[in-house]
């Protein structure tokens, strides 16, 4: 076996230029896949943080069963009562990995500056919970994001999205009035004071979104103690799916007809981007693998033809057909392994350069620049390494098999 490796390795050195060209094809192909995987990994991470923390979706959302589909038509029926909010929150807080349980209440209506009014959609949330929900372990923004904040001591203060504040010429400290329909269907209006403004990061929501304290929201909707959902923040994102299943079983077992969604299920944008990048990744990987396979097969095919007489000699002195196949597939395996290792080196170097270059760009449907960063996606890099090595090795199988089946005397007489 050791001898086969030695022969295979020396075989690669026999035609150095051809081996180098094939190695470069493998290495560049590998690094193209690895760098793109690293970029998408970073984008996924950024989108996940954006969904969980910036959009404050949290990791899990608990709501009454049917709330998402029927709740808009009959909100009264699908809101959690105060007793349910308290009891379910307590059950959730007793679970490991649960960092925060925040009751939430959505509303929509009209916001007026006294002269003009426009529609708004808003989220009611406790100020302390709002601060905790936005705390993420990493932040990708080029321009540090100003966190949205509500004042627990001043429940009448609201946070407005920049577009909404601009539209109504409402600066910080400005006065406005919110008009909404209460749960019972009666119009309810309250004066509000504009606190800070914020950028939602999404052009479609930046001219209509607002945050209110939960108390103010409940007052406007006349929904004392109630919530349409509970946002759960975990201390470990990897526990999300497992905990969802566990919590759902527990809550249903305790008699609460609730459903639980993960942040991935609720973030359409994340899923759309993920799906699109996965498709592009598959497309690029297919092209690169095809190029690698053709390159290796071509290189090994030429090698086999050039070494036909040597194959005849080895067969004459006792190497079996399977040994010939093993010899050339080992050579191909070494070629792809070395190529992948070289590709890994190129990946690390280019990744280092990109991450150091401070490049930023504005993604589609976004208003703020984000940095172009490349992660090391260990999972996909390992998968690519293994797949490319296997495929590269198999690419030599056909030429090697053809060589092994050649008659010894024909091979010895090959010119």
């Amino acid at each position, binding site marked *: 076996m050791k001898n086969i490796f030695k022969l295979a390795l020396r075989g690669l050195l026999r035609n150095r230029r051809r081996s180098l060209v094939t190695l470069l094809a493998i290495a560049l192909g590998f690094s193209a896949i690895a760098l793109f995987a690293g970029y998408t990994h970073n984008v996924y991470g950024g989108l996940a943080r954006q969904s969980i923390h910036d959009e404050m979706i949290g990791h899990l959302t608990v709501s009454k069963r049917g709330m998402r589909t029927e709740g808009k038509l009959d909100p009264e029926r699908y809101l959690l009562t105060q007793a349910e909010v308290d009891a379910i929150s307590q059950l959730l807080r007793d679970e490991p990995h649960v960092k925060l349980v925040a009751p939430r209440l959505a509303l929509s209506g009209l916001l007026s500056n006294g002269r003009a009014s426009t529609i708004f959609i808003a989220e009611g949330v406790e100020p302390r919970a709002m601060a905790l929900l936005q705390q993420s372990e990493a932040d990708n923004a080029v321009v540090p994001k100003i966190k949205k904040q509500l004042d627990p001591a001043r429940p009448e203060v609201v946070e407005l999205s920049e577009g909404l504040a601009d539209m109504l010429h409402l600066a910080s400290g400005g006065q406005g009035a919110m008009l909404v329909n209460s749960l019972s269907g009666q119009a309810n209006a309250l004066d509000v004071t504009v606190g800070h403004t914020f950028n939602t990061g999404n052009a479609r929501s930046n001219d209509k979104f607002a945050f209110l304290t939960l108390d103010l929201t409940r007052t406007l909707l006349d929904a004392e103690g109630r919530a349409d959902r509970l946002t759960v923040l975990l201390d470990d994102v990897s526990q999300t799916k497992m905990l969802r299943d566990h919590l759902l079983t527990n809550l249903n077992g305790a008699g609460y007809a609730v459903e639980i969604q993960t942040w991935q299920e609720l973030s359409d944008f994340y899923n759309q981007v993920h799906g699109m990048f996965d498709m592009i990744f598959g497309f690029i990987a297919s092209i690169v693998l095809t190029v690698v396979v053709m390159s290796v097969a071509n290189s090994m095919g030429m090698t086999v033809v050039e070494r036909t007489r*040597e194959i005849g000699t080895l067969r*004459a*002195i*006792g190497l079996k057909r399977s040994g010939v196949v093993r010899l050339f597939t080992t050579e191909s395996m070494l070629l792809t392994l070395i190529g992948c290792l070289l590709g890994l080196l190129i990946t690390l170097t280019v990744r280092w350069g990109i991450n150091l270059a401070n490049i930023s760009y504005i993604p589609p449907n976004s208003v703020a620049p984000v940095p172009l960063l490349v992660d090391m996606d260990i999972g996909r890099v390992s998968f690519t390494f293994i797949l490319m090595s296997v495929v590269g090795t198999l690419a030599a199988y056909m030429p090697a098999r053809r060589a092994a089946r050649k008659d010894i005397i024909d091979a010895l007489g090959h010119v």
Partner: protein
Amino acid sequence: MNKIITAPALLKLRNVRRRFRLGETSIDALNSISLDIHAGEFLAVWGPSGSGKSTLMNIVGLIDAPTAGEVCFGEQATGGMDDDALTDFRARHIGFVFQNFNLVPVLSALENVMLPLQIRGGAEHKARELAAAALRDVGLERFKDSLPDKLSGGQRQRVAIARALVVEPKLVIADEPTANLDSENSRMVVDLMREMNRARQVTFVFTTHDPRLLDHVDRKILLRDGSIESDEVMA
């Protein structure tokens, strides 16, 4: 006066024919050859080009199969053996020396000689010891680390002889081993083969065009048009 051979037959060929198809036509390279090759013989097969010498060597070396007839190595009939069994058999019992030396260019002289032992699955250190000894026997110990392209034609052929002998075969097949050598190197190579034949009692069968080399052999077989024209045991 011819010597009487009393050694047992190492190889028996009975009514061996070999026919090659070339498009629409077919050529009989060997016609009903029957032949006993005895253990320890130093035997030359000679004759004009196209007489079937190489075809006979290929069949005797078990790298080609006859179209008809039987080849027995000792008591073992080789006709029913599959490719793997034949390959194993060659690895254990037959050494080859080729006209073009056929050394692996990326391996040193020592590594070339080690090759048949390693193909058989021997331990590397043992193979190294045996290969070094075989190179010593052919007078090339100091060239053990040289690549084939750094050796002269005569030296390469001596490495090839060491490679053939390192597995202690019963039979060495050498197809035109001196064809690519000058007369001095040709004589040296044949002398070396002769010496190994005597010292180790290994049977050598080789083909040649050179009538001068026939003076050194125990037996010479003249082939013409695929048939044995004469089979002389030398005095």
